[in-house]
């Protein structure tokens, strides 16, 4: 029996990521940043401390140089990783959970429920997200969690719409009818029949939303709408801009943060390809079958593998 269909839970997730080269690369990069966020702050100096002459280029003492205030860039980058990743994943997951809940309710129950919820998320969709985020962020007391709230409020509607569309397609499938005939409750049909069928969609959404949340958060903070005394990737860039890093040519004050943002986004996208195979077992079977044929020196086709009993 093939390991693809039998593996369950964590082992299956790990397996899917390990099999796929792209996913493996993504996982390694992401793991690096997660480690950086968890244990990194213990290893670097206080990011607030004025440790040296301002705007020193990278040296043996300060690996990434110093800021316009004379603080250590590496320390700020590492400490900032924690908040930025936390907000990124927190917002990404929350946005998809809220969106999935509302979208699946609208799509499954239809009728007036759908009418009301669709109206709600359509209103949120036509509100331009980033300008609204700027306005709200400017009014509320500044801080990373305010930003998270703003991003959740402005970001859930798109996910709801996608999940609703997917639910509309799935609920017409006979396996939902079969579940109804058996006597499954609405709640059980949604949680056991519909949601697992959308795993890859939801994961792709979480990854997409996380990338968006990190980007938007960095953007808003760069504009000075976050708490400028906190240490995040966005405030790092804000201070770099404030200290005229571009004018003075102090590239080390903003390039490392920029690369970190880009790398995390890249890693998440790579990871997605491995998850896709996991939640669609057929993709996995096809891969196993192709490898088997190739090992026998045969030319693989797109035919569906079938059990002979």
């Amino acid at each position, binding site marked *: *029996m093939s390991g693809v269909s039998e593996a369950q839970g964590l082992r299956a997730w790990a397996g899917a990521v390990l099999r796929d080269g792209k996913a493996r690369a993504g996982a390694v990069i992401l793991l690096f940043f997660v480690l950086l966020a968890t244990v990194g702050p213990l290893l670097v100096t206080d990011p607030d401390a004025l440790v040296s002459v301002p705007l020193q280029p990278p040296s043996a003492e300060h690996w990434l140089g110093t800021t316009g205030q004379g603080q250590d860039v590496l320390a700020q980058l590492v400490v900032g990783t924690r908040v930025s990743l936390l907000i990124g994943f927190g917002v990404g997951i929350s946005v998809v959970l809220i969106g999935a809940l509302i979208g699946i309710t609208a799509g499954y129950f239809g009728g007036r429920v759908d009418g009301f919820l669709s109206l709600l998320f359509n209103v949120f969709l036509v509100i331009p997200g980033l300008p609204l985020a700027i306005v709200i962020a400017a009014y509320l007391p500044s801080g990373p969690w305010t930003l998270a709230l703003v991003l959740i409020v402005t970001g859930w509607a798109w996910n709801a719409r996608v999940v609703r569309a997917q639910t509309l397609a799935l609920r017409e*499938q*006979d396996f939902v009818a*079969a579940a109804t*005939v*058996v*006597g499954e409750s609405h709640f059980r049909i949604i949680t056991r029949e519909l949601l*697992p069928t959308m795993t890859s969609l939801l994961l792709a959404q979480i990854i997409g939303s996380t990338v968006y949340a990190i980007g938007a958060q960095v953007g808003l903070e760069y504009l000075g709408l976050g708490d400028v005394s906190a240490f995040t990737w966005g405030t790092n860039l804000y201070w770099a801009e404030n200290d005229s890093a571009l004018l003075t040519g102090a590239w080390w004050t903003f390039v490392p943060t920029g690369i970190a943002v880009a790398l995390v986004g890249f890693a998440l996208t790579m990871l997605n390809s491995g998850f896709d195979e996991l939640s669609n077992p057929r993709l996995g079977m096809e891969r196993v079958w192709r490898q088997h044929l190739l090992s026998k020196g045969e030319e693989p086709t797109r035919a569906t*593998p079938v059990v002979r*009993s």
Partner: protein
Amino acid sequence: MTSPILQVEDLKKYYPIRGGVIARKVADVKAVNGVSFDLYPGETLGLVGESGCGKSTLGRTLMRLEEPTGGRVLFEGKDLAHAKGKELFDLRAEIQMIFQDPYSSLNPRLPVRDIVIEPLEVHKMGTASERLDKVVALCRRVGLKEEVIGRYPHEFSGGQRQRVGIARALALEPKVIVADEPVSALDVSVQAQVINLMVELQKELGLTYIFISHDLSVVEYISDSIAIMYLGRIVETGKKETIFSNPTHPYTRALISSVPNPDPRKRRVQVAIEGETPSPVNPPSGCAFHPRCPFAVEACKKDVPALESFTQTDDPRHNVACIRKDEIEPHFKN
């Protein structure tokens, strides 16, 4: 004479068509338009008709996948059409369904074990290990090997998937199974295997089937009695032998003529019907078949003919909905 296990009385399913700015109801699609029949225990009723005649909607309405617009469905005296909550939940265990498309009727993310165990878990039958034993027994019974229970639907062929669907339908030990075109998506050789399996299971478990199909040769093989549907109504019912040897309604005659008859001595009046099935939104007045009927007279346009007993055959269950049933000559001549 045994009493029917399922009595369908004047069952209706209309779908509203809404139009205009305030989504006012402008018309109805009368998919099932007053259907009545009795189903006897241990028998197979073949429900036959063209695509779009409402036979699948009838099956789905019986299963309460669609809410009936009117009428009653009595299962051992309890009205399935209006049951709610716990009563409906308990009745569901008595009537199960086999679906047409073996590809969409199994959840692609669940292994066979989870698909077949689901009804048992929902109805809280037995302990976890008893349920698993039952799943294994069911899979064996429908001709699947025990070791396939960990596999996912995409690893099976259409016929094997349909066997999984049958195992799921049997899990609750229902008395009645509604099979909606269960073999029309399968290869002919696989069709025979699945139908033979259904026949064996019927003998063994005393099941009662409603077998919905457009394929007369399949229906002739499996059915005890047959109901012919046209545009949301039943136009003729009777024992299988009666319907095939003495089709009386002009529409039934046309259907039977379309089946090749291997007996060259049997001569028959050729009834070729022309045209398309009319729209169920705006069905023809009177007998819905009159625009295509070679025997139609002016009176056919007036009233909808009732499904009445046809006394010229010796089948007490032979009912025909045609005002000219006693006048037109028999279909087969010897």
